[in-house]
Every structure is written in structure tokens, then in C-alpha cells.
């Protein structure tokens, strides 16, 4: 059969290509320029160099910021998991006063503009004795990451037949055993998925961090500070590394998610 020109298909195809280009072209530019031997972004480049990556390794401030960012992402994600998973179970499997209300407001920290959350926390944390500090940033990230874990795990639990847990109890397993042997294996991928998503979201969070930070900069804030002194090719290099790391996490998440379904 001969393929004829099909206008709708052509239009949809072009739109898709345009959207993809719109999203990824800037990223490609950053990646390409990160290997630029010159300090000015001009095309064509005069060659290929790892100069900016080497410079990065010597930049104590940037490396410190990266360490802090990883620490905050790790801590925030842990808070999100430790509170989000039990929260999701409580919402999906138990009745308690205020459940409806909680169901409605749990997404708020995600949907509110970061600036509002940031200002709110800035004025609230000192009231409970938490000074503006790395700890404040950690708690700040934790609060909106709870929403991620909670909603993802809750959605998975809603699709999990509650009679599985009853069957486990019926066969003599106390609640703890039921959780580890029946519930956890079935929500495992949702937990891993939300952990990876939380980690990446925390890694590039600016507004909340900006309000709560004191001294120790996270990576995005450090980059932003560097940009004020003009675009440094070093920024291209660190962005490329973060980009590669994120892609890696996403692929890992998809791979684990896929394994769950076979």
C-alpha cells in the first residue's frame, strides 16, 4: 500500500517535534557548550575540551553546594517517605476524624506557589524555635515532598484489593507481617518512584530554599549566584552533570517500575 500524505498526521507530527525541540533544544545547547574550549558561547566551537569540568572539580564552593544539595535531597526524601507512606496507608485503609479534610489539603504544598510556602515557613519556623538554617531547608523540602509520596502511594493502595490484607490476617499474620510481606511488595515501586521524583524535585528547588537558607547554599542557588557574575561555562558543565544524573534516576525509576509489572 502506498502511503499518502495525510494532513492531520503531518500536523500532529510537526507539533510533537516542535514541542520536543522546544523542551530539549536549550538542554542540548547547554550540553554542547559545556565541552566548549572557549569562555564565550559561539558556534561553531573551536574544538572539544573538558576544561570546565576540570575547573568544576577545583571549585570548592560549587562542590560544597552540590554536597549540601544531595544532603538536603536525601534528607527531604527520607522525611517524605517516613511520613508519606504511613500517611497514605492511614488515608487508604483507616477511618479517622478529619480524613476528608486531610485528603483535600495534602496536595496544597505542591500546588501553592513556592514563594508562598517559603514566606509562610520563614515566618512560622522561628515561632517553633527552628532558626533559618539548613535544618529549616530540610524540613521545608520534607513538607512538600510528603505530598508527593503520599499521593503516589495512596493512588497505588487504592488499586490494591483490601481483601489481600484481610487474607493475610486470616492466615494468621499480625499487622506488621502483613505490611512487610503483602502490602510493601505491592506498593514498592510506587515508593521507589516517588522517592526518585522527590529527590530530583528537591535537587532543583529554589523558592522555598531561598527563604530558609542561611549561608550554606544549595546547588541551584549557588548556580544562580554564579550567573549573576555573568554566564560561566562552568555552569554549563555542572548543569550537564545534573541533567545526566536526573536522566539516570528517571531511567532507573522506569526500569524498576517495569519490573513490577512482569
Amino acid at each position: 500500500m502506498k502511503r499518502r500524505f495525510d494532513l492531520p498526521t503531518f500536523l500532529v507530527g510537526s507539533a510533537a517535534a516542535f514541542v520536543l525541540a522546544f523542551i530539549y533544544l536549550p538542554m542540548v545547547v547547554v550540553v554542547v557548550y559545556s565541552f566548549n574550549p572557549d569562555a564565550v558561547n559561539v558556534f561553531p566551537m573551536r574544538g572539544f575540551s573538558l576544561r570546565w569540568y576540570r575547573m568544576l572539580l577545583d571549585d570548592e564552593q560549587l562542590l560544597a553546594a552540590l554536597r549540601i544539595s544531595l544532603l538536603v535531597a536525601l534528607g527531604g526524601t527520607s522525611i517524605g517517605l517516613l511520613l508519606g507512606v504511613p500517611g497514605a496507608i492511614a488515608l487508604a485503609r483507616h477511618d479517622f476524624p478529619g480524613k476528608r479534610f486531610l485528603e483535600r489539603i495534602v496536595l496544597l504544598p505542591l500546588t501553592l506557589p513556592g514563594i508562598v510556602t517559603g514566606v509562610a515557613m520563614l515566618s512560622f519556623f522561628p515561632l517553633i524555635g527552628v532558626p533559618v538554617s539548613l535544618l529549616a531547608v530540610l524540613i521545608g523540602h520534607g513538607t512538600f515532598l510528603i505530598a508527593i509520596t503520599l499521593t503516589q502511594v495512596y493512588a497505588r493502595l487504592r488499586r490494591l484489593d483490601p481483601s489481600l490484607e484481610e487474607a493475610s490476617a486470616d492466615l494468621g499474620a499480625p499487622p506488621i507481617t502483613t505490611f512487610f510481606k503483602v502490602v510493601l511488595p505491592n506498593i514498592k515501586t510506587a515508593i521507589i518512584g516517588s522517592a526518585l521524583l522527590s529527590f530530583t524535585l528537591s535537587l532543583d528547588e529554589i523558592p522555598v530554599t531561598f527563604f530558609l537558607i542561611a549561608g550554606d547554599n544549595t546547588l541551584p542557588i549557588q548556580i544562580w549566584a554564579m550567573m549573576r557574575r555573568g554566564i560561566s561555562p562552568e555552569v554549563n558543565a555542572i548543569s550537564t552533570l545534573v541533567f545526566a544524573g536526573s536522566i539516570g534516576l528517571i531511567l532507573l525509576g522506569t526500569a524498576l517500575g517495569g519490573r513490577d509489572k512482569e
Partner: protein
Amino acid sequence: MGIVELRKVVKRFGDVEVVKSLDLSIEKGEFLTFLGPSGCGKTTTLRMIGGFEMPTSGEIYLDGREVSALPPYKRDVNTVFQSYALFPHMSVRQNVAYGLEQKRLPKAEIERKVTEVLAMVRMDTFAARKPRELSGGQQQRVAVARAIVNGPTVLLLDEPLGALDLKLRKEMQFELKSLQRKLGMTFVYVTHDQEEALTMSDRVAVMNGGRIEQIDAPVAIYNRPKTRFVADFIGETNLLAGEVHREGSAHALSLGGARIPIEPDAVLESGRGISLSVRPEMVTVRKAEGHESEGVVLPGTVEETVFVGSVWKTVVRLKSGERVVATEPPATHGELEQGTSVVVGWNPKSAVVLEA
């Protein structure tokens, strides 16, 4: 004392009383079925025995021990769930071994018991499969194996065959029944399918609106229903409502102008409202030529005759206005045309007198 005892068990969800003061004693080794329309409280009752719901009031005893407030994992009861509830991430073998592992039996013993029970339900060749790789009937067998391998005091089954097609359902009814006989295990079964209840059970508890209307052997449930509801719910029946007319020791039901002889178990006063239940297979239809004086004889006209293979099914409109359905062997008479004048009759002993 029975192996399962329910004493004045009430279950309320909010303001709704779903189970109303249930008293019940289940014998060791018997096959007891809760039968009733959807929403009458069968599942709720079963779940209270299993420990998934706590009674609002009343007590439940298992093997002489009060368990009303015990969680499921502290009761020696196992359940076959309607959805089977097989663990999707475990193989058939792991599913069946789960209960024995909770009891911390030695590995070798678990292995042996699982193999034995899988052979018993003819699933031994599927031991390594995951539940989703099995057909509905196979999943059902695994669900039964997973429960009986623990040798529970009582096995609870909530509409276990509900999701299967008709042919498979009949086969599984037979298999479950013979399994129960072989194991001598107490089965408490829930269904809304009366045929299933009658064929499998030693006793049937007919439920309606949160109460047990009658609990009896299947034959008694069918032949001697105690309430209008039971007579109507089990099988097909003709229900005729009227007043008692008594002359000495002879009773009759006044229906329009007619007097139908009845034989109630006790003496009834004249004027009392009652219902008469007559099974279609007890009713005969004859052309209104000869004179039959034996038993019940009521004139009417044929509304419809249908040949249903094994029987003629005839619908007759009585002079008094009621419809009476009769099913008779094909040899009794030929097709009766619509409008034919007939008399219907039955032996008064085969009709059951019920409260109005």
C-alpha cells in the same frame, strides 16, 4: 455446644442494623449455608465469624472459646474470599505455604503439606505459577487450598463460585462438597443461589433483612417453608392469600367464593388471614369435563401453556382472580389452548399453610 455459636449477635453500621440479634449454633463437621437476597447481611455475618467485623453486641464462640473481640489472626478460622485474594507477587506454592509459615512449622513439613493439598485440588502442576497466570477456576482451587491446608476449625466461604461460569460452577459445587466430606471439616458457606445452597448443604439458614427466617435441612426448607418469604425465595411457588374457615376439625381457605381444603399443623380460628404455598409440580390441570371430587378442585381458564422440555408449564387464571402455575410431565395432557376451561387441583397435604 456447637463448634460455632452466635448469641444475640447484632451488627450496626451507623444507624442501620444490618444483622439483627442472630442466634445460631453450627455443628462440628456440618456444611451450613447462609442463603438470602443481596444485602440481607450474609457477608457481614460471615465476616464477624472470621473476625473482620466486630459485633455491635452479642457474643461469638469458636470451639467453646469466646472470640467476639479477637482479630482474625488470633482465630483458628480460614476464609475463601469471593475475589480469591491470592497474593499477586507470590507463586501458587508460596500462597499456599503462607499460613503454615505464620505458624512457624518446620520447612520440611510445610513443603509436604503444601504438596499434598495442591495434589488434592489438582493444582500440583501449577505450583510455580503466579496467580495471574491461572484461569478463574484454577485461582479458585488455589484459594481453597490456601485455606484448608491450615486445617482450620471452621472454613468460611463467601460466594466462592460467584465469578465462575455456570458449567464450571456446577463442577466446583460437586468438588467442594466432596472435599468437605473427605476432610470432615466444618464449612460455613454464603450464597444467593438457592440451587447451590440446596445441593451442597447439610443445613440452610435462609436470611432476610438481617434475620434468619428458617434454618433447616434442604428438603425441609423446600417442602416445609416456615414463612411466606422462604416459600417464595426458594424455588417457584403459588402463594394464595385468604381467610381460614373452620368446621370442627376441618379447615379450609376461603378464596373469593371458593373453599380450598387445607391441613394446617395446628388448629386455626375462622377469619384468620393466612397464605397457602403450593409448588407448581404439585398442581394438576384437567379439562373441565369430568367431575373430580377428591382434594382441591378450582375452576379457571388457561392463560398460557409453555413446553419447557421436561414439563408442560401451564398458567391458569382462577375464577377468583389468582394466577396458578402448574408444571406437569408431558404425558399428562397435550397442549392446552389459551381460554380452555380447566380445573386445577392438588393434594391438600402437599400445600403449606403460612402466616399471611
